[in-house]
C-alpha cells in the first residue's frame, strides 16, 4: 500500500474564524474515503484548500510525494487532483462532448501554432482525445447526448457529466463534492454503483463529501468527520457510527436532566 495523498496538519482561518484547524488525512492508492460533517463544518473549504483555491496558512499537502503548497488550481489539477463542484459548474453553453474535451486538454502537447497549421501532432492528439472522450461519455451513459448543449441536460445527467469531465483530466485522485445532492433514492443507488465502477475502471482514488449517510456508510472504507473545522473522528463506517463525539455533533448533547 503506497501513500498517495498525505495531508499534514493543514490550517486555514478567515479572520477570526477557524475554517480548518490541524487537518490530517492519509489516502492510499485505490482508497475510497468519505468526508462528512454538519453544515459549515469546513468540508468544502477542505476541498478548496486541496485544489489550490485557498492557500493553507500552515501544514503540508503532498501528492505522490510532490508538494502541492503554493501551486495554483490548474497546476494542482494537472498534478493529478481533479474535483467536481457542489453547485454544478459546467460550461453551460458548450456541448457535452466539448465539456469533456476542455478537461482533456491537460494531455495536449501541441501548441496553438500546431492547431492553426493542422500539424500531425494536432491531428493525432485531437483524434485520440475525441475517441477517449466518447468512451468516457459511454461509461457515464451520456454518449447519445454528446452534441447536446450541457445546460439543457437533466440534473442527474449534469452531475454525471461533472464526474466525467473531472475524470478526463486523468486524475490520480478524484474529489467529489456532494455528488448525490438533490438526487432521489433510486438515482443515489445508481450513483453509488457508478462511483464504485469508476474506481475500478479508471484506477482512481476517491475522496467524497456527502450528506447522505446511507451512501457514505455503504461505499466508503474510511470516513473523516469534521465539525467547526476540527477533525472529531476518523475511522471505518462502523467506528464512526458508534463514536459519541460524532453523535454529539450531529444530534447534540444529551440533556442534563437526562444525564442525572
Amino acid at each position, binding site marked *: 500500500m503506497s501513500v498517495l495523498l498525505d495531508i499534514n496538519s493543514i490550517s486555514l482561518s478567515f479572520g477570526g474564524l477557524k475554517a480548518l484547524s490541524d487537518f490530517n488525512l492519509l489516502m492510499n492508492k485505490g482508497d475510497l474515503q468519505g468526508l462528512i460533517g454538519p453544515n459549515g463544518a469546513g468540508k468544502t473549504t477542505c476541498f478548496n484548500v486541496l*485544489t489550490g*483555491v485557498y492557500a493553507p496558512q500552515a501544514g503540508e499537502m503532498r501528492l505522490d510525494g510532490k508538494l502541492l503548497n503554493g501551486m*495554483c*488550481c*490548474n497546476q494542482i*489539477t*494537472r498534478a493529478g487532483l*481533479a*474535483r467536481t*463542484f457542489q453547485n454544478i*459548474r*459546467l*460550461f*453551460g*453553453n*458548450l456541448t457535452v*462532448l*466539448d465539456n469533456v*474535451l*476542455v*478537461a*482533456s*486538454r*491537460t494531455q*495536449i502537447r501541441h501548441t*496553438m501554432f500546431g*492547431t*492553426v*497549421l*493542422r*500539424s*500531425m501532432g*494536432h*491531428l493525432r*492528439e*485531437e*483524434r485520440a*482525445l*475525441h*475517441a477517449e472522450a466518447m468512451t468516457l461519455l459511454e461509461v457515464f451513459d451520456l454518449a447519445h447526448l*454528446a*452534441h447536446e448543449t450541457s445546460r439543457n441536460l437533466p440534473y442527474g445527467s449534469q452531475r454525471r457529466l461533472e464526474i466525467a*469531465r*473531472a475524470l*478526463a*483530466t486523468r486524475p490520480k485522485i478524484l474529489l467529489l463534492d456532494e455528488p448525490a445532492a438533490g438526487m432521489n433514492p433510486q438515482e443515489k443507488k445508481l450513483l453509488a454503483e457508478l462511483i464504485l465502477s469508476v474506481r475500478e475502471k479508471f484506477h482512481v482514488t476517491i475522496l467524497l463529501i456527502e450528506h447522505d449517510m446511507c451512501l457514505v456508510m455503504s461505499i466508503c472504507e474510511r470516513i473523516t468527520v469534521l465539525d467547526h473545522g476540527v477533525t472529531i473522528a476518523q475511522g471505518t463506517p462502523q467506528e464512526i457510527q458508534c463514536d459519541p463525539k460524532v453523535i454529539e455533533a450531529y444530534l447534540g448533547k444529551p440533556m442534563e436532566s437526562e444525564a442525572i
Partner: protein
Amino acid sequence: MVALLRGFYPYAIAILIAFVMYKVMPVGAEKIDLGILQINSFFTKVTGAIGIAIIMAVSLNIVNGYTGQFSLGHAGFMAIGAYTSAWITHYGSIHFFGNANAMEGLFTKGSALFVASLLAAGLVSALFGYLVGLPSLRLRGDYLAIVTLGFGEILRALLNQTQPVLDEFDIEEATRGEIFTGLGGALGFSGVPKYSNLFWVWSVAIITVIICYRLKQSIHGKAFLSIRENEIAAEAMGVPTTHYKVAAFAIAAFFAGVGGALFAHTLGNIVSPNEMNYQRSIDFVIMVVLGGMGSISGSVIAAVALTILPESLREFSEYRMIVYAILLIVFMIVRPDGIFGIREFWEVKWIRRLFRRTPKETHAP
C-alpha cells in the same frame, strides 16, 4: 504529406479567391455592367472596407466572444498596426528605393516590403496586446473595459504629439529621433505608399477567418470558451486561464495590427489619429455582439452588413445614423444573443429548419 496539404490548402484557396476578387473588381474608371447593377470602383472600395471590417470583427471575437473578456481597445491595436507599417513602408521605401511612391504591379520589391511591414505591424501590435492583456488577469468586466479604453485613448493622445512626416528631401538633414517620431502628429500620416488592394485585404481576411475557425474547433479553442463559461471550473479542469487570456489578447491584437496596416495602405494616408478612437472600437464591439459572441460566421455577416448598411442608407443623408441605430436596437430586442449566439450559422437550429435539413449532427474531429 497529406497532412501537410490538409494544413495548407485552405490558405492557398484563400489567396486564390482574393486574387480572383482583385482581378474581377473594377478600379479607376472601369465598370462592370450587370444590367440592373452598375459595378464601379466605389464597390471595390466598399469591398475593401468590408474585408478590413471582417479582420477586425473576427479577431475581436477571440477576446470578447470566445474568452469573454471585454475589450474596448481594438481600434488602438489597429492604430499601432497602421502606424508601425506606415512608418516601415514610408521610410523603408525612401531608404531602399529613393522615394515613397508605391510601385506598380502586384508582386514587386515594394510589395515585399509591404508584406514585411504587415508582419511587423502584427507583431508589434501583439506585443502591445500582451501588455494590455496582463491587467485582464486581475480585472474583469467593466473594469477591464475601462483599462482597454484608456489604452486606446492614451495611444491616440501620444500619436497626436508626434513630429511631422519627413519626405525624401527632409530626411537627409533629419536626426534619428526626428525620423523615429515622424508620424505626422494630429495631421495624420500622409504619403503612405498605396500598396493595399483587394488581393492583400481579402487574403488576410480569409486567412484570419480560417485561423480563428480552426482555433475555435480545436481543444485549445475550447479552453478559451471554457474561461468565458466558467472561469473557476476552467481553472479546476487544468486550464491555465492566465495563459489563455493573455494569448487571446495577443492573437486578437496581431490581426488587428495587420488590419490597421492594410487600412493605412488603402487610402495612402492615415487621416488623423482621431480616426481610430474609441468610437471605432465600439463599432467593432457592435459587430461582435450583433453577430453573436463566439460565432465567427456571425461576426463575418455582421461586419459585412454593418459596413454596407451606412453606405446603402446614404440617400437618407443625416437620418441614416438614426436608422442605423434603430435597426441595431430592434435587432438586440429580437435576438439578444446576436444573430447566431455562440454557434456557427450551419449549427443553428432555426437555420437548419429553414433548409429542412435533418437535425442529425455531423461533428468530425
